[in-house]
């Protein structure tokens, strides 16, 4: 099984996936003083300030919402708790850019909220102040509402895993339950909360759709502008590299917190803390409190989308929409297959050799999950264009034929970018599955008379099936939701659900954008449901 060919091919593929990151970072080696002088004079300060405020704001808000919800659900027993604890995951299904224009539709001058207010109070235009959702605080709110589940999930697990005896220990040492929360429960859950917040902040930095739609200039919009507006590809790559440095900082924070998490949750699985029962009105208020994020993060925008979609139901059977579905699904399915197969190769190669020459490239390849889609798109585009140009040149010199853009304008570029972006998701799933198969199982099967191929077929395949399926599904859904890389890299006139929905919304055709957006949200629900079931069963397993 440890054929050198297999491990060399795997290393090659892993290095290939690491190319975009290296290209972006490598762009810093070619200084561009004029561009940077220009950026410094004009927009760079805005990019930095807005991106940082956005990331910090989203980090704080999602940490606050997620922690509050996690504590309520983990420590109190109230009416509807069992349902609400998975409803709280629903906002994950809504991409932030879809939130952004749903809320714009809800809250703008002609939208239902302001119309109703005018009707009630007999106001007319200019009579009243209404906060502008299309702003930096608005973007923070939109992103926090869909990203808080990261914190919620991790913090809920952390609070649940805190042994009930911690509270009792605090009390025998002279502290009230309230003091215990601030002195022990919260600090012990801090690594989990930080990890979740770091993930939310990475997503916030990666966001393009929301900030672009709200007219907030950040790094991601700046990269688009430098690429398309100024035609400066190297400059775009350098801006990407700068953005990367922020992201890497967050990545470090996340990894560091995760390490701490392991220590904090060591040897503390004794007794599940008992939930305090809250009855009557107080219990009902807790239910309402937990429903707030669900309502604002899922129900309201989803209802708005449904409302619009019903108006345009005739579109459902149109050839245009069918084409969108076909494009999106085939692209997502293709990417899922490629990514999961590569992940399987990487995971096996790592298991078989464990040598640094293999582990390192695989780790590099899996780093893409932290990087914004925009950055990866740039990192894919530059080397592919260079490759195309040299092939073109070579073909012209040799045969007098011009080949033009062989790769960079095609689906190859798009699939490559997706694979880089979502490799970590697939790898994580597959490695978790592979971990269940201990080396002694291989030995046991061999000693019972199975050949290596037989072991693969009769032991590994059945055990890995579930995790490979979940890798396929997760990548499939992520590709459907992805916006910025698709916008940058799609072949001319090739539209997907996300791109079409986004373009229509940008043209202020919100109602027309609803149907593709709704399709994305509905498909996005599938992994959320699977996730909530997985969380439930792992919590049962812990008991």
């Amino acid at each position, binding site marked *: 099984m440890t054929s050198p060919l297999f491990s060399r091919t795997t290393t090659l593929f892993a290095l290939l996936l690491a190319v975009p990151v290296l290209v972006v970072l490598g762009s810093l080696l070619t200084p561009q003083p004029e561009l940077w002088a220009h950026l410094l004079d004009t927009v760079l300060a805005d990019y930095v300030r807005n991106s940082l405020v956005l990331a910090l704001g989203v980090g704080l808000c999602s940490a606050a919402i997620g922690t509050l919800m996690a504590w309520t659900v983990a420590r109190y027993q109230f009416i509807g708790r069992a349902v609400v604890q998975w409803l709280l995951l629903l906002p994950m299904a809504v991409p932030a850019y879809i939130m952004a224009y749903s809320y714009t539709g809800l809250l703008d001058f002609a939208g239902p909220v302001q119309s109703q207010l005018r009707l009630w109070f007999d106001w007319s235009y200019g009579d009243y102040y209404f906060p502008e959702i299309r702003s930096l605080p608005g973007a923070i709110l939109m992103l926090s509402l869909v990203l808080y589940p990261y914190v919620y999930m991790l913090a809920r697990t952390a609070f649940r895993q805190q042994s009930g005896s911690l509270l009792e*220990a605090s009390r*025998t040492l002279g502290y009230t339950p309230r003091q215990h929360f601030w002195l022990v429960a919260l600090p012990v859950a801090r690594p989990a909360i930080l990890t979740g917040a770091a993930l939310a902040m990475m997503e916030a930095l990666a966001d393009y759709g929301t900030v672009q739609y709200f007219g907030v200039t950040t790094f991601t919009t700046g990269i688009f502008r430098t690429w398309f507006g100024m035609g400066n590809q190297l400059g775009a790559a350098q801006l990407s590299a700068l953005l990367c440095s922020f992201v890497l900082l967050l990545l470090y924070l996340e990894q560091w917190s995760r390490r701490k998490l392991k220590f*904090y949750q060591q040897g503390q699985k004794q007794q599940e803390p008992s939930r305090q029962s809250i009855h009557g009105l107080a219990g009902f208020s807790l239910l309402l409190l937990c429903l707030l994020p669900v309502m604002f993060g899922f129900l309201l925008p989803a209802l708005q989308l449904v409302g619009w979609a019903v108006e345009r139901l005739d579109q459902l059977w149109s050839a245009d929409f069918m084409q969108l579905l076909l494009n999106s699904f085939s692209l997502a399915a293709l990417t899922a297959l490629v990514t999961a197969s590569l992940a399987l190769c990487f995971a096996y190669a790592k298991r078989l050799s464990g040598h640094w020459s293999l582990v390192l490239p695989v780790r590099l390849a899996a780093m893409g999950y932290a990087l914004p889609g925009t950055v990866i798109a740039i990192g894919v585009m530059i080397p592919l264009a260079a490759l195309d140009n040299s092939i073109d040149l070579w073909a012209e010199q040799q045969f007098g034929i011009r080949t033009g853009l062989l790769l960079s304008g095609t689906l190859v570029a798009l699939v490559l970018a997706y694979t880089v972006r979502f490799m970590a998701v697939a790898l994580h799933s597959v490695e978790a599955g592979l971990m269940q198969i201990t080396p002694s199982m291989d030995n046991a099967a061999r000693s019972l008379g199975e050949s290596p191929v037989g072991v693969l077929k009769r032991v590994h395949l059945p055990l890995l099936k579930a995790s490979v399926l979940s890798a396929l599904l997760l990548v499939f859904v992520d590709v459907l939701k992805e916006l910025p890389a698709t916008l940058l890299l799609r072949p001319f006139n090739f539209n997907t659900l996300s791109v079409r929905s986004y373009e229509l919304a940008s043209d202020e055709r919100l109602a027309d954008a609803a149907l593709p957006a709704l399709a994305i949200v509905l498909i996005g629900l599938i992994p959320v449901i699977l996730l909530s079931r997985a969380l439930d069963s792992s919590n049962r397993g812990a008991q």
Partner: protein
Amino acid sequence: MLVLQQVSIAYGQATVVKDVSLTLQQGQIGCLLGPSGCGKTSLLRAIAGFEPVQTGSVVLAGSSLSEPGNMVNPEQRRIGMVFQDFALFPHLTVAQNIAFGLKKKPKAQQQQIVDELLAVVGLPTLGDRYVHQLSGGQQQRVALARALAPEPDVLLLDEPFSGLDADLREALAQDIRAILKQRGISALMVTHDQFEAFAMADQIGVMQHGKLQQWGSAYELYHQPANRFVADFVGHGALLKGEVLADEKVYTALGVFAQTQSNFTAGVAVDLLVRPDDIVHDDQSGFTAKVVSKSFRGSHILYSLELEGAEQVYCLAPSHHNHQLHSRIGIKLELDHLVLFQRL
């Protein structure tokens, strides 16, 4: 002094502790011993203030802590506790854990207490470590130091050794007993392991089905068990059928014995408790028994023997008395006092 008066505890309809009364003197180490589900942990948690009592009262140093409908909060009880899972705070260092209950003392004094306790539990250099960097036995010591720091009136220990390796348990039990004795601290421990109870406690309470069956020293529990359950739960033993004769002596398959206290009158059918160390191997004896099984215990061999009438007893013989299975050996019953129960 800790006094429990007629304490009952119930969860909903199920009463888990019934009418338990006991007194723990200042400086004494007590232990609640019993099989799992006997209510011993519930009783400990009621003393700590985590469970309300349904009837009766918990009185510490003259003031009532728990009565039906009236409960002092755990944080106001001055009762320390060492938890089964230690419940050390993972985000704090060892020193910070120990200082956790000392918030009302000035910093300098806190430091002094922490240093002193670290020395007492034998970890003087580990104050700056985090909990996850310690071994199980070290964590146990830190948990003890943390509970002792606020100088509680009584210390509760919930199955304190259950998470540790067998060889570590005995050493730690002796260390902890020495520390408690030296500082004159009253303590009440809960365990299901009688050897832990013997190693730690002055007074042991055996519990079953929520009732305190007997409260006494280890010697009393072993040699003067109050009832069949205690006789069976503490130590090895067999019950030999007997009959009280006209002269109030007891006739058994291994001879006739005088009652230590004349509890049973002539004609009553009784069971006599026979411990393995009561049966002495003696080749001259007129009584013989067949070896049914044997288990080697190092210095001794524990034999299961079958008497003529198919009754079985245990015999603890020095291990150079090595007899074959199914062989017959001579035995005699040597009793200081008789433990008799009326036959059921």
